[in-house]
């Protein structure tokens, strides 16, 4: 039986105008990611990784082409429609953690649950924080937590609503090597347990090799398609 695709990009292009010149960032990209698949998007700075992530997650709209999330065309939606799709399907982990400084660890995890109107947001958030080993840090504010702890809160926040797809943008970029390693272990183990589709943007090849597939992005094109699964 063919698994329906979690993320599909069709003829995806993005051009921006800078000082009157049209600058092509992504050019007619095609991409298909199956449910439960783990895909790394790698490339050097300026290769268009973050732009692609933004388009796939509906944070931005393409110049041409479209993105389907679980076969729903996110590119055809307006801002609020895209926000609703994100709330329904997606979770995010960012390089700079992006926790709301006004909320405690628990409240940060509860936020996406509350936004989708989940009734037992608190219980789910507690469970998620327990899973990342922060049960004793519930009432701490982001600035009272270390970098690694902040990223663990962010991971708990990402997994709590049980998203179909998790987008991670350089999740270890702001962490030291040892902490980064632990965070990645955590990310992958949770991903495996929940069978979440993972789209990981990084320039760290060793990280990319832990994914089943790696897409190399260079000047707006994939240079190589499938890379064999990691060891």
């Amino acid at each position, binding site marked *: 039986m063919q698994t329906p695709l979690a993320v599909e990009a069709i003829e995806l292009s993005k051009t921006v105008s800078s000082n009157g010149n049209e600058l092509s960032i992504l050019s007619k990209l095609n991409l298909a990611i199956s449910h439960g698949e783990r895909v790394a998007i790698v490339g050097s700075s300026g290769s268009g990784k973050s732009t692609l992530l933004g388009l796939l997650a*509906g944070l*931005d709209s393409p110049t041409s082409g479209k993105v389907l999330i679980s076969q729903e065309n996110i590119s055809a939606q307006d801002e609020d429609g895209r926000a609703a799709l994100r709330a*329904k399907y997606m979770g995010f982990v*960012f390089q700079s953690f992006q926790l*709301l*400084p*006004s909320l405690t660890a628990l409240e940060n995890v509860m936020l996406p649950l509350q*936004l989708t109107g989940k009734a037992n947001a608190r219980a789910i958030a507690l469970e998620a924080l327990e899973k990342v080993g922060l049960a004793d840090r519930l009432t701490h504010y982001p600035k009272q937590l270390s970098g690694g702890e902040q990223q663990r809160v962010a991971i708990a926040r990402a997994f709590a609503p049980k998203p179909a797809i998790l987008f991670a943008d350089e999740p270890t970029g702001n962490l030291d090597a040892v902490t980064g390693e632990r965070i990645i272990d955590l990310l992958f183990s949770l991903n495996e347990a929940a069978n979440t589709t993972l789209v990981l943007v990084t320039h760290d090849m060793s990280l990319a090799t832990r994914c089943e597939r790696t897409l190399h992005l260079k000047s707006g094109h994939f240079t190589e398609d499938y890379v064999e699964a990691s060891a």
Partner: protein
Amino acid sequence: MLAFSLALRQLRSHWQAGEVRVLLLALVLAITATTSVGFFTDRIQGSINSQGGQLLGADLVINADHPLPEQYLKEAQKRKLQTTSSLEFPSMVIHADASQLAEIKAVGEGFPLRGDLTVSQQAIGGGVSAKAQAASIPSSGSVWIAPRLAQILDLKIGDTVDLGNRKLQVTAFLQNEPSRGGNMFNIAPRLLMNQADVASTGLIQFGSRARYQLLLASDRAEIADYAAWAKPQLQKGERIEDLRSARPEIRSARDKAEQFLGLAAMVGVMLAMVAMFLASLPYIQTSLDTYALMRCFGATKKLIMQILLWQTILLALTGSLVGCLLGYAAQAGLASLAGRLFVETLPPPSLMPVLAGLVTGFAAMLAVVWPHLRRLQHVPALRILRRDLGDFDVASWLSFIPAILVLAALIFWNAGDLKLGAATLLGLLGLVFVTGLLAWLASKALQRLPEANSSTWKLGLAAMKRRPGMTVAQVLGFSLGLMALILLALVRGDLLQSWQASLPADAPNRFMINIQPAQISDIKQFLSDSGIQGIEMSPMVRARLLAINHKPLDTSQYKDEAKRLAEREFNLSWAENMQQDNKIVAGQWWTKSDAGKPMLSLEKGIAESLKLKLGDVLTYNIGGSELDLTVSSLRKVEWDTMRTNFFAVTPPGLLENFSASYITSLHLEKGQEETLNRLVKRFPNITIIDIAALLDQVQQIITKMTHAIEYVFAFSLLAGVAVLYAALIATRAERIREATLLRVLGASRKQVTAAVLAEFLSIGLISAVVATLTASGLAWYISTQTLGIPYTFNWHTSLLALIGSILLVPLAAWLAVRGFLNQPPRNLLNSI
């Protein structure tokens, strides 16, 4: 509920981070400034009203030419107002063989409700408060008489006078009374009696020329309510007198004071908006990140809008309430200080300023946040990946129209005067335009500036160059605050100067009337021998207006005041030259060759009341013969100078053949009263009208208003300085970040400090020049066009403002960042 709880949590975090503290501080300061000025002006106006009440003898008087219908008194009693009544009529007073027409005033218990009667046992000098005596009004069977009546009838304490059928005993001399309204020239000497004795004199019968008054007093709101009730009830011959209608000289001073206080309140509003604009920038900037993240997690625009609105409401409510409380505390402190300035205790403040504070707080907060709302709602979720998206853009300041509208509405509301409000608003918009242009030009010029030799200047100017938008915003903020302060200083000076000039210490305090032409040189000689020089005599011919444009005068077409003017005798005068303080507003004053021509120059006010215009022909009856005069000019007369002035003046060579008497005014120092007694003994026909007491009252009121205005001025100044400081704090975080980076890159503390000083010196300089120019223009407009006082450019104030701001702006900036410059850069990097 989610929106509210998120709004509350975000506010808490913004509070901890500091941005919202500055915004709230600015709002609190603004509301404190406006409400304390509001509370205080409210109370001062109350005080000025009660001061004015002293002249009227009450807060409100209903005056009629017939006994007043019961309903007025009943309604007043129902409303529990203080009431008393009085009755005025002219009558002959006889003593021995002599008789004199006197203005009788019969008063009831409790008279006067405001102010006091002053009585003495000697005809000249002295005098104590009647209220301090056993009897506050003459007891039944006794009268108090004006010294002039005593002089004419040769009366002493204990003598008896005949008044109609009744004999009454003189028990005191009446030195001063409130409620001496009306035209002072028509006033015969006063005799004050008890109302209980009126019936027994037999003088008041049907058709008697008497005026009946009901005097009322209470707090302002009650009186205003009563006046509103009474106005529609007024019948023919009945009218309401309050301070505004009672004394034109006080009215003009009070109107100016009110306008000024309104202006002072406006300055508070203006400063508030400026500071909040600046303070909102870092708050909104931080909010951008939060909302981008929330959008990323799927928050709808509606939710973000709700959160923002809740935050706005919470901030406005907190700021307004705290501001109102502080404002109340500030004015209470102020009132205890002012207790020494104001003899009478200030009335309690009303709740109106609280309402005004709340409305101002909400309106200002919404106006400041509103333009951001749309942008925050539409903040791109992609900002989470690309920080530059959705950043604050100076060009979108054009969308700040709601703020301008709210500011305009608040200005008009506070000004309470269309012209003054429009002038201020126009000045403000002009300033925004001019400042924006100048700041933009300055920042453009900086970009073309060749590399500076001094590295600190380079650093400082580079900081301006890096953020041209913020530079424009800061210059705008500083200029507006400064302009408000300079404007206040300029207009205040002009106002006080003009008041003092209009009523100098040697203003005439005695009028001498009934001087016969043959006596002029003798009287001048007499006065000159007594050390009183430079007396000018004006001729006065009594005339009655018969017809306008050959149509017999129909007084029924006029309302109360105009009707009385039309019905009574005019005093025509003639003069070759116009009085110095008069101003032609229509037509022309005559030339020498016009002597003998039937021309007439009318005072503008009376012309308006009687609906007369240039070219109208007025027919007068003068001593039995008729004379046609054509209106050739209209004059504006400064009545509050207390000099002799006439409603109607003709050229010389026209009225000389009619029987004329002369009038003069003179200033008599205290202790010179004896001179006048000798004068009256020698020339018994002349009458002296003593307005010294009235003048004293006017002077006192002006002095008190001056103090009040100085206080309000000082308070606005303080608020302005504090608001400017708040505006500076708002950009502190960014400055600290820059200073830290410079320190990390190896700049010395001295260099970084100098760079900050250089930047703010430039901002201070541009702001000061722009503010001085705009404030001077606006002060000119307000002085000449609105307050009606001459304007002179004030170099002193302008220079002081210029020097002050180029010294104080950098100093304030330095004070704001000093603490951080002294720390090692590593600590700072951790904190940013």
